[in-house]
């Protein structure tokens, strides 16, 4: 039941984001749909099926939504301003956003995830866990947004560069969450045993003291000054 519902909502999301815009733009501007374009538009469906059948959270929550980006960056017509113009466009965008939220709500309640390395305690329902999860989503989308901003707002026809930028953004976001944010900050904040380990590491292994606090200030000030100089040069 849950799997069917998830597939249905995922299919609706892909239809609203890719299938319907492609058909609309084909009728309106004669968008050509060769095999490679259809393959890019259809890519999210096997990813969704693999995520549902394999019960893998990372496929459902990360790879499936991200797989839409390849088509969106390769086929500029799918994000044409014509699609989201006027009251109808606003309504279409609202429906798209609502279906996206419903998809995430269902996917986050997937029972018995397999292949997940993250301890279930991290995903408990305490207010602190909810805050850390929201913060994680915010940071992840901000980093990804830094990459996607130029993809969608830089006027260019270079689709290879657009795809490379999207892939770089996805890799950077994944690497940051998987290797830095979750294991080094989220898990220690939410789990008592991991927090004790972090306390020991910071206080006794690194021997954090006032001098290190001062050096941290110096490093941050130097980085920000370098950034200002760098920005004025470029």
């Amino acid at each position, binding site marked *: 039941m849950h799997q069917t519902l998830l597939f249905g909502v995922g299919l609706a999301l892909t239809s609203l984001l890719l299938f319907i815009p492609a058909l609309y733009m084909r009728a309106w501007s004669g968008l050509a749909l060769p095999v490679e374009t259809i393959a890019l538009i259809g890519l999210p469906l096997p990813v969704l099926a693999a995520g549902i059948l394999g019960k893998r959270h990372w496929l459902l929550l990360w790879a499936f939504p991200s797989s839409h980006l390849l088509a969106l960056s390769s086929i500029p017509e799918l994000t044409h301003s014509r699609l989201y113009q006027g009251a109808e466009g606003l309504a279409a965008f609202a429906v798209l956003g609502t279906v996206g939220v419903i998809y995430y709500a269902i996917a986050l309640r997937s029972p018995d995830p397999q292949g997940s390395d993250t301890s279930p305690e991290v995903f408990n329902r305490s207010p602190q866990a909810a805050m850390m999860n929201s913060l994680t989503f915010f940071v992840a989308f901000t980093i990804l947004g830094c990459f996607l901003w130029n993809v969608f707002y830089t006027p260019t026809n270079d689709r290879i560069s657009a795809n490379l930028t999207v892939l770089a953004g996805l890799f950077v976001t994944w690497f940051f969450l998987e290797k830095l944010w979750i294991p080094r900050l989220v898990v220690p904040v939410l789990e008592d045993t991991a927090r004790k380990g972090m306390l020991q590491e910071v206080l006794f292994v690194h021997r954090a003291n006032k001098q290190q606090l001062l050096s941290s*200030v110096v490093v941050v000030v130097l980085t*920000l000054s370098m*950034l200002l100089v760098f920005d004025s040069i470029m």
Partner: protein
Amino acid sequence: MKSAFLLLLALAMLGASLFFFYRSSALLMGTDYLAGLLHIFVGFATIRAGVELCRFAVVLHSRSR
């Protein structure tokens, strides 16, 4: 107080890393792939520093309670 100050420093570092990521995407879109890659490395180093400062802030906050 110290932990709040460290958190502020950490946010500054996270913001700086976002700047590098934004620049790297602009360079990648401009087909300057090597410069884009180097910016990603600098962004990673900066964001790593931000995460470490966050950990330091959490530890100080835990000890002050």
